[in-house]
């Protein structure tokens, strides 16, 4: 980690950055090993790290476990990664959508494993991983099939299910701006899982529309503090498909 001190990780500031600002998305996803658990940001297409996923397809890591809210939309982003045959398991809350045909085919033909997790549990299990929590009792899902086989407990007259953290080897997320230290801000509802995933992975990789000088971001408004970010890459702003536009 500290080999960075000898690199030229210039921040335009005295602080030496642990985070790397990389020139290409290929460099940003370098080293993602076969069998890794990768947390992928986004809610549908909002906040989906398209460029990093495209790079991951070129990089070719296989047998990945993907943790994301959905299991891909259309033929782009996460759906393209699934289509490339690089994913063995998806942990998500809402795989079935009108445009999830890539996942649907893989699932129905038994080529991909699914762990279905209520959306709030998905977020909280990653939050727990990032916060060093061993497990937590959660009221969501009590008495439903998604709690079957899990430990339950009565606390103060209410029932809870024991849920374990979801830790990522890598988090791959999209944000609006970052500074070279790794402070990150997001845009609108594209924030979604990004800040939680950034805390829950060993290595957090962020694509941003803009890299701004250290000291530019309002410290009061930084959403993901630099300590959670390892790699930053600037990508071109893209106009991507908007579902349901009218």
């Amino acid at each position, binding site marked *: 980690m500290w080999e960075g001190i000898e690199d030229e990780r210039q921040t335009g500031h005295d602080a030496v950055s642990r985070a790397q600002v990389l020139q290409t998305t290929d460099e940003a996803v370098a080293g993602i090993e076969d069998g890794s658990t990768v947390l992928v940001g986004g*809610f*549908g*297409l*909002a*906040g989906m790290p398209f460029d990093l996923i495209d790079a991951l397809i070129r990089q070719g890591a296989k047998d990945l476990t993907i943790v994301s*809210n959905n299991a891909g939309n259309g033929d782009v982003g996460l759906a393209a990664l699934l289509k490339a045959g690089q994913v063995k398991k998806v942990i998500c*809350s*809402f*795989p*079935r*959508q009108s445009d999830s045909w890539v*996942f*649907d085919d893989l*699932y*129905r033909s038994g080529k991909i494993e*699914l762990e*279905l*997790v*209520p*959306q*709030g*549990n*998905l*977020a*909280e299990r*990653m*939050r727990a991983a990032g916060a060093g929590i061993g497990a937590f009792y*959660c*009221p*969501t*899902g*009590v*008495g*439903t*099939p*998604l709690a079957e086989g899990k430990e339950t407990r009565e606390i103060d007259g209410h029932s809870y299910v024991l849920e374990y953290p979801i830790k990522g080897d890598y988090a791959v997320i999209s944000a609006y701006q970052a500074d070279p230290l790794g402070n990150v801000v*997001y*845009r*609108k*509802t*594209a*924030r*979604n*899982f*990004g*800040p*939680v995933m950034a805390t829950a992975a060993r290595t957090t990789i962020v694509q941003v529309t803009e890299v701004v000088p250290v000291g530019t971001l309002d410290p009061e408004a930084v*959403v993901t503090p630099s300590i959670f970010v390892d790699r930053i890459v600037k990508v071109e702003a893209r*106009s*991507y*498909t*908007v*579902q*349901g*536009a*009218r």
Partner: protein
Amino acid sequence: MTEPTIERLAVENTDRGPLTTDELAAVIGRDIPAGAYVNLGIGQPTKIADYLPTGEDGNPTCILHTENGMLGMGPAARGDEIDPDLTNAGKVPVTELPGASYFHHADSFAMMRGGHLDVCVLGAYQVAANGDLANWHTGKPDDIPAVGGAMDLAIGAKDVYVMMTLFTKKGEAKLVQHCTYPLTGVACVSRVYTDYAVFDIQPDGVHVLATYGITLADLRDRVNVKLLG
């Protein structure tokens, strides 16, 4: 938040047919208290947004929460307003109202589980007389299950309202003694708004608050649940 309305007498509107989706959305909209924090889920209940009571500025008197990280959600975006970074839980582009805020998913669901959200409105396959809700999975083996935020909303919001047709296409009542579909939440529904009647689920049983195009007697005939007036 919501005042108990149990003392409200059952309203029999036998002279009008079952409600359209828009009429039903309007009925629910009228029952959303000013100042409430409200989640309208995805699909049909999002129509309620068009029928919320509004203040002098023309904006709703309640504040809409969307699970993907926003309070103060405005109406659907049109034309130049469309921003791919600003969508609702159904991934439809929306707008923001003055006073809006954005937050990440763990905070968004803390608002539900932590008991901060006043009302949510969800669709349903079935609701049981004790308030059990089934709305995420048909249980059929070839069906790909998807749960999204339904389970978190069901146990989290202070009041869980259901918006649904009272009968399936085959004519079976969806208000049942016991759910046969897999459950989303246990004893969590407080109010059921349907095209034929509005039901209030109370500790002493299911009360009928209003009927539309059906008499109470006919309703009792077609719904296999003990219905109190």
